[in-house]
């Protein structure tokens, strides 16, 4: 990584922006620390062993959490662990009984010592599983280190059928993809449960289920073995079940998860208290499993003008960074997002894109930045789209981005066909190789367009963060300061699933995570 700034960005200003972001997230973190949500409780149960579904497809974690509905402020874990102890059954058997109608809230409580001992045993087992996943990934990445590409090539599959996704993902891996993301079916983010089992029907994507995770994981491991490199798997840890999906991803060795501290609030109308609380728990799980998060700043630019609103991207990146830090996440796991979305008719648009991408690189030198392709101005003219993607590939390599989500020439038409992905990978590899050392070759005019652009965006970001800090983040969101979308603090979906923790709140998984990540208070 370059030490000096090519854009001449002021260190003092960057530090100021960071400090303001800390001021923004601080009060929210206080709220988070005092609260839990129904999906955090279900994620906890999952990490303790709850899994499966009843004959109507209702997941065991939901059944168990519903049984404890009146006392969720105390945590659901005690009931589940109590049932394991009292019935002296392993989780798999207890899960079957819960699916069959057993109500764990009705079981006589055993003494606290036995609960604590069982909890210690279960979290030790969890730690063993997560540590084994982390060690396996690290070993495989090391073995394939000579084939590591920069940026990493990220493509999506989205057929709706997990078995068809596997064929497409396999082909993409053999074509050179490093990262495969399975896009979720529309509206899964608003389901307050995670479907169970393998699925073959989806719309614009495939259900995120633990079984689907397993199927794709094993397919990518096989493709990786053939290619002698590790292929990373991505899914969405967002929506109403954010922490549960984080738990599933951690257990099934996903490598990256889409996770944003504000996306659900702004773009899915999920209640802000719910999302803030959920993202914290999710990120602790992600961190424990060494999973890189991908934040969703691209969305600010698809809904607003990419030049006018460039500073909202940087502001959001800084806010995401502070929230992630509070969850114990190191910078190397913070895949902050941004995108190439300036109107292609803009004169010198390329220079602005280049300046903004380089600015992100310079402000976040140790973060695995995720750069996203043009989507808003893609049309049915696939040839023009392919040309736009070439410029995107250029900026991506020329600014040393870490993760590059490749643009598809058919972006505006359909979810990618097999050959669309192959053409995208061919384009990216061509550009990356041809300008391999470009980053180190160029400097920019001191008072030129690019330097001026980066400076202006940073200044606007500082002004925005100062205003948000002054008003408080809850209020800033209510008044539409992000993405021009107004969300009332008590509105949105999932608000009724937020609970203030009682003084006796018990969550051994949270205790384990906080201890492991050294953020225990």
């Amino acid at each position, binding site marked *: 990584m370059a030490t000096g700034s090519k854009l001449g960005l002021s260190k003092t200003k960057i530090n100021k922006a960071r400090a303001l972001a800390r001021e923004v997230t601080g009060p929210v973190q206080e709220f988070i620390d005092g609260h839990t949500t129904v999906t955090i409780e279900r994620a906890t149960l999952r990490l303790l062993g709850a899994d499966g579904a009843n004959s109507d497809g209702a997941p065991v974690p939901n059944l168990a959490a519903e049984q404890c509905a009146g006392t969720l402020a105390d945590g659901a874990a005690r009931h589940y662990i109590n049932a394991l102890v009292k019935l002296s059954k392993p989780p798999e058997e207890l899960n079957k009984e819960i699916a069959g109608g057993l109500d764990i809230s009705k079981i006589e409580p055993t003494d606290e010592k036995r609960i604590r001992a069982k909890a210690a045993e279960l979290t030790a087992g969890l730690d063993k599983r997560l540590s084994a996943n982390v060690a396996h990934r690290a070993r495989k990445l090391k073995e394939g280190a000579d084939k590591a590409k920069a940026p990493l090539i990220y493509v999506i599959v989205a057929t709706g059928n997990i078995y068809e996704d596997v*064929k497409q993902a396999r082909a993409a891996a053999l074509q050179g993809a490093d990262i495969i993301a399975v896009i979720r079916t529309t509206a899964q983010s608003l389901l307050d449960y995670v479907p169970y089992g393998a699925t073959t029907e989806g719309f614009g994507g495939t259900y995120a289920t633990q079984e689907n995770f397993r199927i794709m994981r094993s397919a990518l491991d096989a493709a990786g073995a053939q290619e002698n490199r590790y292929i990373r798997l991505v899914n969405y840890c967002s929506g109403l079940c954010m922490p549960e999906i984080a738990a599933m991803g951690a257990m099934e060795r996903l490598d990256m998860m889409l996770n944003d501290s504000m996306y659900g609030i702004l773009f899915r109308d999920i209640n802000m208290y719910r999302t803030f609380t959920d993202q914290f728990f999710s990120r602790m799980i992600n961190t424990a499993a060494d999973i890189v998060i991908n934040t969703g700043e691209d969305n600010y630019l698809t809904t607003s003008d990419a030049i006018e609103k460039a500073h909202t991207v940087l502001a959001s990146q800084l806010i995401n960074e502070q929230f992630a830090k509070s969850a114990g996440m190191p910078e190397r796991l913070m895949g902050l997002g941004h995108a190439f979305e300036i109107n292609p008719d803009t004169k010198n648009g390329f220079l602005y894109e280049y300046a903004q991408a380089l600015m992100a690189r310079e402000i976040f030198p140790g973060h695995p930045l995720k750069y996203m392709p043009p989507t808003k101005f893609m049309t049915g*003219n*696939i040839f023009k789209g392919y040309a736009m993607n070439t410029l995107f590939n250029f900026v991506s390599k020329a600014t040393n981005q870490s993760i590059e989500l490749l643009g598809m020439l058919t972006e505006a038409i359909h979810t990618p*066909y*097999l050959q669309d992905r192959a053409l995208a990978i061919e384009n990216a590899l061509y550009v990356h190789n041809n300008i391999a050392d470009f980053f180190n070759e160029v400097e920019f005019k001191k008072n030129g367009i690019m330097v001026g652009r980066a400076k202006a965006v940073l200044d606007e970001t500082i002004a925005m963060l100062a205003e948000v800090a002054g008003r408080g983040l809850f209020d800033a969101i209510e008044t539409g300061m992000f993405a021009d979308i107004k969300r009332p603090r008590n509105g949105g979906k999932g608000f009724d699933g937020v609970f203030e923790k009682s003084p006796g709140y018990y969550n051994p998984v949270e205790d384990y995570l906080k201890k492991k990540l050294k953020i225990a208070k």
Partner: protein
Amino acid sequence: MFIKPYGDTLDDGAVQLSFTLPIPCGGKAREAAKLYVQKLGFKRAEIVHAAAMSDDFTFFVAYARTEVSLDYDKVEYAEAVEKCLSMDEVGAFIKTTFRRKIVIVGACTGSDAHTVGIDAIMNMKGYNHHFGLERYPMIEAFNLGSQVPNEKLLEYAKQVKADAILVSQIVTQKDVHIKNLTELIELAEAEKLRDKFIMVVGGPRVNNKTACELGYDAGFGSGTYAEHVATFVVKKLQERLGGR
């Protein structure tokens, strides 16, 4: 096994098309393009892009589904060379099999002025890190260049006692290459020279099947390097000598 194009689901029949119609751009043009795609036999045609090329031409991009399938097991095709020898292996093969250098004459014939194909196969430097036949120590290679009349090529081959003739055809507009290739074969047969040479065709729109149908010994398409051609020539020559 019956096969159909694959988009994102097996047998979905997804096909991407692009074409221009001689009509002004507009809603009627889109509708016409859609009907035309349907008339080609496609189902669920979708015009995803229409752009005016001038006042009276419109360019379209379309996606459509086909119901046509093909029995893949009934497809017959064989490559001229299944397993390719390296430059050194070709040399060793010639030494032990023929105990003399072999002679190859190549040209781009007829009105075709593009030497890129014949040069890629014959020139010392070769192409894409694959040396050309001139570099092969056991091959005497004569590259006659472009726009060589068929008569002259045959005459030259006779003169240098060639074992093989390579004909390159890059331009294929209006099937000009078929006429030219047919003429060369007819000429060789009229002069009773056809059996004296191994005759090979190369070019981006050429394949082994078409070449054999036209009366050549083999055809090589894009992606061919000198060692493919050399391997074919030496194996075929061995076959012919063995048959004598």
